């Protein structure tokens, strides 16, 4: 079975070249994207979990713990079963906040650079044995295949090639969150190679050594199930502990974390992996007992870890290739995962490149340098440790170390009150126990530790793995819980806890940034990053958010800041990103009464919708229902926060204004486009809760809007502010004006007979006087007298015609109200005169008791219309000789105008319907039913109220119509028109 070093070198480098080619093909785009992004590629890449430890170390585990080797596969399978509650929330967190590693995640949640550093150091210490194990496996196999006593040089060459591959294909993107598709495909290819090779080796062993399943059964009957009768069969608790160890690897091992979360193409792929990865692992675990028994049946002298080499011949080379695939894949991904962590949490913590550096260039080359360095350190650890320990021991030690992160990860998701003091203390305790129990004996070869009392603590290394694991994890958990309970978390930590919590939504405050525009962002960020980098980061964030560079809404600025922080986190880790944004993009104030950012809450509620349960789900349904109701109400609704930031802009508002919600939500009311900003801002400043029929000039057209507002400051309201309702009454106004004009014309029609009579009398008089003139021609005095009478009569005619014409034309002023000082006595008198023109109006006694000094702001012609209608009704209700009294007086801050009559009165059942359009008690043809409706409309236009009282309080019979007008009406606004 001996091969030369050259043969092995050519084979190994040949295989790694295929790996290069594979990645290169993807880079060139020769492989369809459909294939590259297929979930199966992701699952196969996850198969990288089965490292050299699985390929070789599993036999050592089987030898030592029998079926206990299965825990390696079952543990992580259990973690994938729990994808919805464990992996998916973590995936969403890492995506949302651009977190690329476990250290990033911890630093983000606990808002501490120290946490990031400790986690990075812990992961370095924990995974170095695993890295060394991979190299050791390659070195040992080379040694076994070539009988070369010093396989270190060839192992180094393989490390160098792997390092070249990792730097070329694993550090191509500047953002850590960008996927390396070429690398992923290459890793998937490696998983496929080792799966096929392992299955082939198992099948060959079964058929060549045992002659099929029956042979195997017979052999097992003869020799007993050696797996069940292992030297040190696992106790139940040991089994459970191993299961827990490998369960934790899914989230605590940096390379698994990297593939699951950083290289993840979609949530769907992760969900499919929840059952596909266990199948992959099952297929990998299945040949282990067969090959193990084959090794025993053949009586091979090879170490049990390398049982797969027992078949001899070219099958050995297949085993070597599969082992190389397993080891190289793990080395590549471990270093790719560790390098950014070391860069973000150790290097950048002590040194940040100056602004004039090209930061992208610097970061990418630092990452490449770290990848190569880590592989080299792994090689050094291999040189130091490999002589003393087998693969299973090194692997177990690494898994026990990284188990210490499991409590922190679970707390991160499900325990918001956990704090960094507890985490740091817990991790220190856990790692302390691990270092004393396993790290010192394995890595530093220390087997005795002096105790304070003078005694010595015997360290037995891996023989104590169970006790060390239990002690480390228990002390870690207990200290973490106790310290978290007795100490307080900082405000920043609480924000981090909210961001990570699965049961609560992050509720950031709606604060204002010092940077008001995108230019400000670039200017401020150019201090630490340089002009070019700052510009690039701002543009990138704007593009990702779909925002326009001119957008200066406070809401947009807050989103831009968050996006920039997330992107910087993807570049340099969350700790540095947070430090940069806090320092160079600070908030103006952080007052305690700042309001929650409702947009953020809503956006996240939408994202969480499918994950809400129970009462929360029902409440969310209710919320959505109410929101939909508001959005689709046919009245314009705009809600504002206390700081006058627009929180809602419904569909009707969009239609009314022509401005979409996306454009204005999050902006201040004064930043709305013209003319809406002035209209709404002035209304907000106005103490009145309603502004009736406000004119708005838009596109050479006048719109009539009625505005209402209500404060949301009652104690029940969680978020205060104002709600504005905007009604478009342009059409109603137009109809009303038409109606008013028609009513006037109808009134003129009704007055026509009286007018004819009134004009007929002076015309008869003029005719008589003209005849007299013929006879009085020679008497100048008589002529003068007659001329004077003629002039008086024509003046009378002119006055009648003028009243009639001005009344008829008043309704044509349909576009505006003409507010002026109106003398109410004169207005009453004008109305009485008009009514007196009619035939039926003559035999009534009209009394105008309105004081002459009583004036009000109003449209004179419309007020005369009111009085004409009221006096006309009074006339119709009274008999010949009836009394009609008009009076007015001031009462507190109101003017009260009354029209009394002593007529037949109004039955109580009619009183409440009097002001409804087309409601009339008159005979058909006598009234339209619109008179009082118009009176009501005009009084309301003057911010007044009208009331019908029957019987009249003065005469004790008939009826009384009382109008009340506020003395302080909105006169100045109307006067402008």
């Amino acid at each position: 079975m001996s091969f030369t070093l050259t043969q092995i070198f050519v084979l190994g480098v040949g295989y790694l070249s295929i790996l290069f080619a594979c990645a290169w093909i993807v880079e060139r785009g020769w492989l369809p994207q459909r294939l590259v992004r297929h979930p199966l590629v992701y699952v196969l890449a996850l198969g990288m979990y089965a490292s050299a430890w699985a390929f070789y170390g599993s036999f050592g585990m089987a030898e030592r713990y029998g079926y206990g080797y299965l825990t390696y596969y079952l543990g992580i399978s259990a973690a994938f079963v729990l994808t919805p509650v464990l992996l998916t929330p973590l995936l969403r967190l890492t995506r949302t906040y651009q977190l690329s590693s476990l250290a990033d995640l911890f630093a983000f949640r606990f808002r501490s650079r120290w946490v990031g550093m400790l986690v990075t150091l812990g992961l370095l210490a924990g995974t170095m044995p695993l890295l060394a194990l991979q190299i050791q496996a390659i070195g040992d196999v080379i040694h076994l295949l070539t009988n070369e006593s010093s396989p270190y040089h060839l192992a180094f060459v393989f490390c160098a090639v792997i390092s070249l591959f990792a730097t070329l294909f694993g550090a191509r993107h500047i953002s850590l969150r960008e996927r390396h598709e070429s690398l992923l495909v290459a890793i998937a290819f490696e998983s496929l190679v080792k799966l096929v090779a392992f299955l082939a080796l198992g099948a060959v062993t079964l058929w060549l050594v045992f002659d099929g399943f029956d042979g195997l059964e017979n052999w097992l009957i003869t020799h007993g199930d050696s797996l069940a009768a292992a030297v040190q069969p696992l106790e139940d608790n040991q089994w459970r502990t191993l299961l827990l160890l490998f369960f934790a690897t899914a989230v605590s091992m940096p390379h698994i974390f990297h593939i699951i979360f950083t290289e993840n193409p979609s949530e769907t792929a992760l969900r499919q992996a929840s059952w596909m990865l266990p199948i992959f692992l099952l297929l990998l675990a299945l040949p282990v007992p067969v090959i193990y028994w084959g090794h025993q049946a053949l009586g091979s002298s090879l170490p049990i870890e390398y049982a797969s080499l027992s078949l001899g011949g070219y099958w050995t080379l297949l085993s070597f290739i599969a082992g190389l695939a397993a080891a190289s894949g793990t080395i590549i991904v471990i270093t790719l995962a560790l390098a950014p962590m070391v860069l973000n949490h150790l290097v950048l913590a002590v040194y940040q490149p100056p602004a004039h550096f090209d930061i992208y260039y610097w970061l990418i080359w630092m990452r490449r340098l770290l990848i190569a360095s880590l592989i080299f350190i792994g090689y050094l650890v291999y040189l130091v440790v490999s002589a003393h320990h087998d693969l299973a021991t090194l692997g177990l030690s690494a898994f026990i170390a990284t188990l210490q992160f499991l409590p922190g990860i679970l707390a991160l998701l499900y325990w918001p009150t956990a704090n960094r003091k507890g985490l740091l203390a817990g991790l220190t305790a856990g790692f302390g126990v691990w270092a004393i129990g396993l790290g010192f004996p394995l890595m530093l070869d220390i087997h005795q530790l002096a105790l304070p009392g003078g005694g010595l603590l015997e360290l037995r290394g891996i023989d104590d793995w169970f006790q060390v694991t239990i002690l480390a994890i228990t002390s870690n958990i207990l200290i973490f819980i106790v310290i978290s309970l007795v100490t307080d978390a900082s405000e920043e930590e609480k924000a981090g806890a909210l961001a990570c919590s699965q049961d609560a939504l992050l509720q950031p405050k709606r604060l204002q940034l010092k940077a008001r525009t995108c230019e400000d962002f670039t200017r401020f960020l150019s201090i630490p990053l340089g002009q070019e980098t700052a510009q690039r980061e701002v543009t990138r964030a704007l593009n990702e958010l779909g925002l326009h560079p001119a957008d200066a809404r406070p809401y947009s600025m807050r989103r831009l800041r968050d996006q920039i922080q997330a992107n910087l986190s993807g570049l340099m880790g969350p700790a540095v990103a947070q430090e940069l944004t806090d320092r160079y993009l600070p908030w103006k104030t952080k007052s305690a009464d700042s309001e929650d950012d409702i947009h953020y809450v809503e956006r996240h509620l939408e994202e969480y919708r499918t994950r809400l349960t129970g009462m929360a789900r029902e409440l969310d349904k209710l919320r959505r229902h109410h929101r939909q109701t508001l959005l689709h109400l046919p009245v314009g609704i705009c809600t504002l926060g206390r700081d006058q930031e627009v929180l809602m802009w419904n569909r009707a508002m969009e239609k009314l204004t022509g401005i979409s919600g996306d454009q204005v939500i999050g902006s201040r009311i004064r930043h709305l486009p013209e003319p809406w900003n002035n209209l709404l801002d002035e209304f907000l400043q106005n103490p009145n809760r309603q502004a009736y029929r406000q004119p708005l000039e838009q596109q050479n057209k006048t719109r009539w809007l009625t505005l209402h507002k209500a404060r949301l400051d009652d104690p029940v309201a969680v978020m205060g502010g104002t709600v504005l309702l905007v009604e478009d009454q342009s059409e109603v106004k137009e109809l009303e004006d038409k109606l008013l004009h028609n009513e006037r014309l109808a009134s003129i029609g009704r007055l026509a007979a009286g007018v004819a009579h009134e004009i007929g009398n002076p015309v008869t008089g003029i005719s008589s006087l003209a005849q007299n003139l013929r006879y009085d021609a020679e008497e100048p005095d008589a002529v003068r007298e007659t001329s004077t009478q003629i002039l008086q009569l024509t003046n009378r005619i002119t006055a009648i015609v003028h009243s009639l014409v001005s009344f008829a034309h008043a309704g044509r002023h349909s576009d505006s109200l003409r507010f002026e000082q109106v003398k109410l006595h004169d207005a009453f008198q004008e109305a009485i005169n008009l009514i007196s023109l009619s035939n039926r109006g003559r035999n009534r006694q009209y009394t105008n008791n309105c004081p002459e000094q009583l004036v009000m702001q109003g449209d004179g012609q419309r007020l005369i219309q009111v009085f004409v209608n009221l006096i006309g009704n009074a006339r119709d209700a009274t008999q010949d000789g009836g009394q009609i009294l008009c009076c007015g007086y001031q009462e507190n801050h109101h003017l009260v105008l009354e029209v009394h009559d002593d007529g037949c009165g109004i039955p109580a059942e009619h009183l409440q319907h009097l002001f409804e359009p087309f409601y009339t008690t008159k005979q058909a043809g006598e009234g339209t039913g619109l008179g009082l409706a118009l009176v009501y409309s005009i009084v309301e236009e003057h911010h007044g109220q009208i009331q019908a009282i029957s019987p009249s309080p003065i005469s004790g019979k008939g009826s009384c119509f009382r109008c009340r007008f506020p003395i302080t009406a909105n006169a100045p606004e109307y006067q402008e028109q």
Partner: protein
Amino acid sequence: MYFYRLVLVLVTIGYFFSPWFLLPWGSSNWYQPFLMWLALIGGTLWLEQKRRLEQLE
């Protein structure tokens, strides 16, 4: 999500009782753990289908 809590409980129970599931080892049924494993995968697949239906509702 109620469903996931149930799964969480089942996995926890499975974790504590897993050594007993593997008890009846014998030379004639060495593949028994793998059958149980297959059952676990089947359960996960069913869970995934169920989850998808639940989210579609």
